[in-house]
């Protein structure tokens, strides 16, 4: 068992942000089918460089993320590698709920009514956390939807599919110091009419540098080149 350097529970509706140091791993563990985490990633200290959804997808010829794939920055570098995945699919293309869409789906449950059991929407959560790093709306682009599976049929119609079970994990290894922003809030296309996201466990471990035979590096020649750019003296 790896030494856990930090552990916390991210309650349903809660959010957080932190810098995941290079060659450390973040493990997210679902506690139920309604765990769903919106994730943004930036180069720590150089936040003009950020996770880029289209660059990530087209380099790896995929519409979703799972083990062996990487999250690429808009500068061609690997920010995060997916080194473990229990559920097999993490959505990249359907974004998050904002305040208006959240109210349309769930109605009102304000702080005055419910204190800290109020309904928090993903976009406001992300904007609050971004603000703590002097970032904002202009830095908020497509997020990863951890634990969420959205499938396109042959005509392009998108649908939510059952995906995650309690205990399943996603493990992300930082290849550069990476600012991670998380919001554990419902996905816009999930089938549940009420607001009751399940908690997510977060754990950080030191895992060391990936070797030459690392599966994320060797899974595609594109990934090998992205690792070269991340490991360059110019990175």
């Amino acid at each position, binding site marked *: 068992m790896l030494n856990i350097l930090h552990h916390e529970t991210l309650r349903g509706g809660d959010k957080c942000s932190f810098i995941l140091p290079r060659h450390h791993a973040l493990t997210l563990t679902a506690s139920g089918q309604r765990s769903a985490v919106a994730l943004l990633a930036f180069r720590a200290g150089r936040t*003009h460089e950020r996770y*880029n*959804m*289209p*660059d990530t*997808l*087209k*380099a790896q*010829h*995929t*519409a*979703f993320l799972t083990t062996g794939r990487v999250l*690429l920055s*808009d*500068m*061609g*570098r690997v920010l995060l590698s997916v080194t473990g995945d229990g559920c097999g*699919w993490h959505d990249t*293309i*359907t*974004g*998050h709920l*904002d305040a*208006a*869409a959240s109210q349309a789906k769930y109605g009102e449950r304000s702080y005055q009514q419910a204190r800290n059991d109020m309904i928090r929407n993903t976009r406001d959560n992300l904007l609050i956390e971004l603000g703590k790093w002097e970032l904002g*709306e*202009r*830095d*908020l*682009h*497509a*997020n990863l939807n951890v634990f969420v599976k959205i*499938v*396109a*049929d*042959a*005509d*392009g*119609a*998108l*649908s939510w599919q059952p995906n995650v079970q309690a205990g399943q994990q996603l493990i992300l290894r930082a290849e550069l110091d990476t600012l991670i922003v998380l919001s554990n809030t419902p996905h*816009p*296309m999930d089938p549940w009419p009420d607001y009751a996201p399940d908690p997510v466990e977060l754990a950080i471990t030191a895992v060391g540098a990936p070797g030459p035979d690392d599966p994320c590096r060797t899974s595609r020649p*594109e990934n090998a*080149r*992205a690792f*070269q*750019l991340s490991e360059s003296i110019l990175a």
Partner: protein
Amino acid sequence: MNSHPLFDRIVPAGDGFTEVLPIGSRFRITDLEGNQAVDTLFFAHPDGAEHYDATATLQRQQRIYLTTGSQLVSNRGRTLLTIIDDTCGRHDTIGGACACESNQVRYALDKRHMHACRETFLLQLARNRLDLGKRDIAHNINFFMNVPVTPDGGLQFADGISGPGRYVELRAETDCRVLISNCPQLNNPCNGWNPTPVRVQAW
């Protein structure tokens, strides 16, 4: 079409274009020679911090391709434009814009010198002295580009489904700015291996 257009221009292969589209105006892009990807961003005008949002648009329409009837949704949840006519049939919005850096990853480290859409976006923002920069370059639409997504989540850059003279026409639902890179990509078939000019008109 009105005989007094707001503009009627040819955008050469590898070049850029930006102009303001007043509310209610119609904007048409014509793929003159066929199979030419037109990388396009839309910003609210004059507040460009509000812009086209690909994931919000997909979420709203629950479909992965854009065509007639698609509402182009902003990061603030507003409809910026609506596609009102489309003789191509479908357009991509998850393939993004090519960049020197992503070309290095996708093709070879020595491809960095090749001209790319994100260079054009940055140059257009700088030349036109717009108060917008790299942070504001969101995930764009690729008009006339074919990026099929399979039910098992595979994604490929396929031969174009467009052809000479096909066009897409949009109505501006609010004042907005269009920013185009007429894609110079030579490493995949998105431009039929031969980038060509397109026509942009508004009235």
